[in-house]
């Protein structure tokens, strides 16, 4: 019998464990996809359409190939498999054939021995375009007679229409407010540009090292386009510099593989920032029309809504975004009568798809704006109105789905409301004033405003999708100590999933030394690092695989020791609590390895006519209070403070949870006051970080955060997805605060200085409610 004492290992579930990749990252030694090199490597580059809509009469690459240092110049004719890919349906060519449908669509790719040579080769490719009128207005694209952009789409330019009918859709109410809202096109703006390295293999296949969100969905699309069996297209995750949805679709994956297979040399492709704006999908711009009906006490009677999402040139994940906007589109409120119609539409604008919040963001800006409008009409406090209608556990969604775990919407609102308000800004410190050190104001004309927002998000994939993850866990003894390795294809994008996997293995097995192996397609799919799902689904898979390993170890120990034992804190322990053996004693040279495919509870499709169905597996909620100072004459906004309350079920890593809430809130701030891809006639006008602004450390205010841990009994450890909810509610809270300060209607995000300073007669009188003059 071992005499070792039992002690709990550090870095378990619930601890703020340090990320295993942190030391490499601060040393500058973490290998991001753009850092990769191979001997004899070539550089790939992409020729893109300058037109949002054009017919291609001809493409001539001859002059590019005559440039010294150029090894390949490929067009659609060189795509060996089907020249189509796409997440939902394959409607997008790898390289354009006879038509281009958006500005920036890839037309040809080249490989050369220096990136500048590759760029010059692109200039030598002659493409004869017949420019066509672009379809740039999503509503007009739905109209009869609009040019049809994808003849194979049965709905014309309507990619998907989700209808939800609940109760009496024509119900009348004592008080009715209507509104029309618009959301601009937001970019994920991850810092690490699209990049990767494709290496041709001896077996005729290819090894691709790439930054992505979902290795296996890349693998299947790349293999399809290359005409290769999936096992000949092997993907390994390279370091990912952020994702936020933008890496769910392919970018350079097929292109690099095509060039590598053609040249028989490794090919690296790295987008610059400008190209990155054309290289990935964006958040859908939206037009949202709402009618809220309530009784005189502020109880919601009905919501009628129409949402049009501009999907741009290709489908990407638009169908799923439409379902989210529709099913979550009345917000976290109890409403007996609902009529919701949401459309996703093809246009010649940049393709739109996944971005953090995924359809819930656009709807939340509209329904929360409506709640403020209703509160004002009723003369009610906006938080009180929300609390009166707040959904709770047991409430029914407009889809008929009953919310069957914690839904502390009212509590989240109370928490942010009851936080102390920040002190007035110091008018002598320009850093605290709108406009900052540009010194545009000295505090005169600065008005403070306070606003609130609360949102709802589904966690994981929905509508009957077979949403699973695979984990392989291995236990062995090395150097006399038990060591665990965890192998999944789950993508670490920065969120801390590698840490979570370690923490789960330490918790389940009580072993300190846990290694998370590089993610690759050598193990089964983990699904996407999106939809706030990986801690839940891959976390669930790792937990289940650890349990199998533990069971196997205990059975082995029982055989060897001749009595039943359990695994407690890394020791084999008898029923009376005595340590019977160490893992090393029992295991010796044996290795225990178990692979588990793990699924969350099934979801179901929506009824196509009524939108009824248990489409989602888990809901998540966050609320924000925003405090802003606005220079009402110059239209400049300074967000002074953001308070957030969010239920995370169980904080697997409290520090990482806070990091998600801070970062998500910052992206919502960006959408509220600065971030928009400006698209004019289908053409992007600001594809750079000089012209597309994301929040700096000066723009982002201090945050006060309450994290609730109300366990979801259906989820591993009770956890609830964390990443998306804070992005959803911060935007409407900030805009509500600006409205409170300015009296402007502000029906569009991002709010621009002109909307505040030049809104003219459209403004309402400045209400007396929450504002405090700055000086």
């Amino acid at each position, binding site marked *: 019998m071992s005499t070792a004492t039992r002690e709990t290992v550090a870095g378990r579930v619930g601890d*703020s464990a*340090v*990320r295993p*990749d*942190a*030391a490499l*990252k*601060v*040393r*500058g*030694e973490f290998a*991001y996809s*753009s*850092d990769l090199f191979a001997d004899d490597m070539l550089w790939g580059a992409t020729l893109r359409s300058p037109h949002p809509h054009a017919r291609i009469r001809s493409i001539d690459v001859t002059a590019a190939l005559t440039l010294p240092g150029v090894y390949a110049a490929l067009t659609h004719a060189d795509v060996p498999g089907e020249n189509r890919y796409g997440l939902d349906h394959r409607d997008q060519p790898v390289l354009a054939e006879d038509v281009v449908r958006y500005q920036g669509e890839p037309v040809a790719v080249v490989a050369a021995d*220096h990136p*500048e040579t590759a760029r010059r080769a692109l200039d030598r490719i002659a493409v004869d375009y017949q420019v066509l009128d672009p379809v740039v207005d999503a509503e007009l694209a739905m109209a009869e007679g609009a040019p049809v952009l994808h003849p194979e789409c049965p709905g014309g330019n309507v990619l998907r229409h989700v209808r939800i009918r609940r109760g009496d859709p024509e119900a009348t109410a004592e008080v009715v407010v209507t509104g029309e809202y618009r959301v601009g096109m937001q970019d*994920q*703006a*991850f*810092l*690490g*540009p699209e990049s990767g390295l494709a290496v041709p293999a001896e077996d005729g296949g290819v090894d691709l090292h790439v930054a992505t969100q979902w290795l296996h969905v890349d693998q299947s699309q790349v293999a399809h386009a290359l005409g290769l069996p999936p096992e000949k297209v092997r993907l390994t995750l390279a*370091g*990912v*510099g*952020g*994702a*936020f949805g933008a890496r769910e679709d392919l970018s350079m994956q097929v292109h690099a593989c095509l060039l590598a297979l053609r040249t028989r040399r490794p090919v690296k492709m790295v987008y*610059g*920032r*400008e190209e990155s704006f054309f290289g990935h999908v964006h958040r859908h711009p939206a037009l949202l029309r709402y009618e809220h009906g309530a009784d005189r006490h502020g109880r919601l009677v009905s919501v009628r809504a129409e949402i049009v999402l501009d999907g741009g040139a290709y489908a990407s994940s638009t169908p799923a975004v439409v379902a989210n906007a529709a099913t979550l589109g009345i917000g976290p409120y109890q409403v007996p009568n609902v009529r919701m119609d949401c459309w996703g539409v093809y246009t010649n604008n940049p393709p739109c798809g996944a971005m953090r919040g995924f359809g819930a963001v656009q709807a939340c800006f509209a329904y929360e704006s409506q709640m403020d409008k209703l509160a004002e009409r009723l003369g009610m406090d906006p938080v009180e109105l929300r609390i009166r209608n707040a959904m709770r556990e047991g409430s029914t969604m407009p889809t008929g789905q009953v919310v069957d775990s914690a839904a502390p919407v009212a509590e989240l609102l109370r928490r942010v409301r009851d936080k102390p308000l920040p002190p007035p800004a110091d008018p002598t410190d320009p*850093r*605290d004033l709108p406009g900052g*050190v540009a010194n545009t104001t000295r505090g005169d004309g600065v008005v403070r405003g306070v606003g609130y927002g609360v949102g709802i998000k589904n966690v994981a994939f929905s509508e009957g999708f077979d949403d699973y993850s695979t984990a392989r866990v291995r236990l062995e003894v090395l150097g006399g100590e038990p060591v665990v390795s965890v192998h999944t294809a789950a993508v670490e*994008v*920065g*969120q*801390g999933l590698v840490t979570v996997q370690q923490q789960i293995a330490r918790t389940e097995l009580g072993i300190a030394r846990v290694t998370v192996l590089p993610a690759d397609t050598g193990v089964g799919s983990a699904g996407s690092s999106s939809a706030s799902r990986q801690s839940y689904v891959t976390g669930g898979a790792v937990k289940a695989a650890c349990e199998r390993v533990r069971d196997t170890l205990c059975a082995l120990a029982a055989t060897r020791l001749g009595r039943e034992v359990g695994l407690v804190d890394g020791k084999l322990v008898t029923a009376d609590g005595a340590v019977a053996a160490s893992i090393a004693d029992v295991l010796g040279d044996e290795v225990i390895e178990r692979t588990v495919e793990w699924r969350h509870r099934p979801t179901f499709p929506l009824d196509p006519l009524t939108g009824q169905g248990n489409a989602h597996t888990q809901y998540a909620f966050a609320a924000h209070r925003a405090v802003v100072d606005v220079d009402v004459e110059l239209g400049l906004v300074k967000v002074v403070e953001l308070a957030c309350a969010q239920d995370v079920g169980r904080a697997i890593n409290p*520090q*990482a949870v*806070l*990091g998600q*809430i*801070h*970062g*998500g*809130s*910052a*992206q919502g701030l960006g959408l509220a006051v600065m971030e928009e891809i400006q698209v004019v006639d289908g053409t992007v006008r600001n594809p*750079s*970080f*000089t012209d597309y602004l*994301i*929040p*700096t*450390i*000066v723009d*982002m205010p*201090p*945050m006060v955060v309450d994290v609730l841990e109300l366990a979801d009994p259906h989820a591993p450890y009770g956890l609830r997805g964390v990443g998306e909810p804070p992005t959803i509610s911060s935007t409407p809270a900030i805009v509500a605060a600006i409205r409170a300060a300015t009296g402007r209607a502000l029906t569009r995000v991002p709010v621009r200085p002109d909307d505040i300073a030049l809104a003219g007669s459209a403004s309402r009188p400045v209400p007396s409610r929450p504002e405090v003059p700055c000086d």
Partner: protein
Amino acid sequence: MRVNVEVNGEQRTEDNVWEGESLLSLLRDRLGLPGAKNACEQGECGSCTVYLDGVPVCACLVAAGQAEGRSVRTVEGLADGDALHPVQQAFVEAGAVQCGFCTPGLLVATHDLLSRVSHPSDGEIREALAGNLCRCTGYEHILDAVRLAATRGGGRRDQEWRSPDRAGRPGAGAPRDTGDPECER
């Protein structure tokens, strides 16, 4: 062209550098130092921040030839062997690293800030790091990291490495200590 440059204390010579290449691509693509990152190519994001003769610069905005005969220090040159620099250690502990793409630039910018102002106020931190974009963290844990590094004397290390003359740069000069413990929160 040939470029001679001292990088992280080591004299390096690189031949056949194209005149259009930046210091950033010289470091990343030729000298095997990919720590400084290329995220915007316009000096907006600060991911490529390195010291050039002791002054933080965006390496994407400096031509490789401009580094001729000069001294460069990158994120790879901050740690002392296996021991992380206190600024690096603070970023690790405070959760200031998520995807980490902005981290190298932020580390150099923080290292520079703390060498000038040993206990910066939050306002000073925000102003000093305003040129470094981070898309993941919302900056809260970055502020925590800078405060933590300051309390550990993160700016007092390796002063000898710094160029003695920093005249002409706004905010530059001899290291100073605001001495205000209130600033540390």
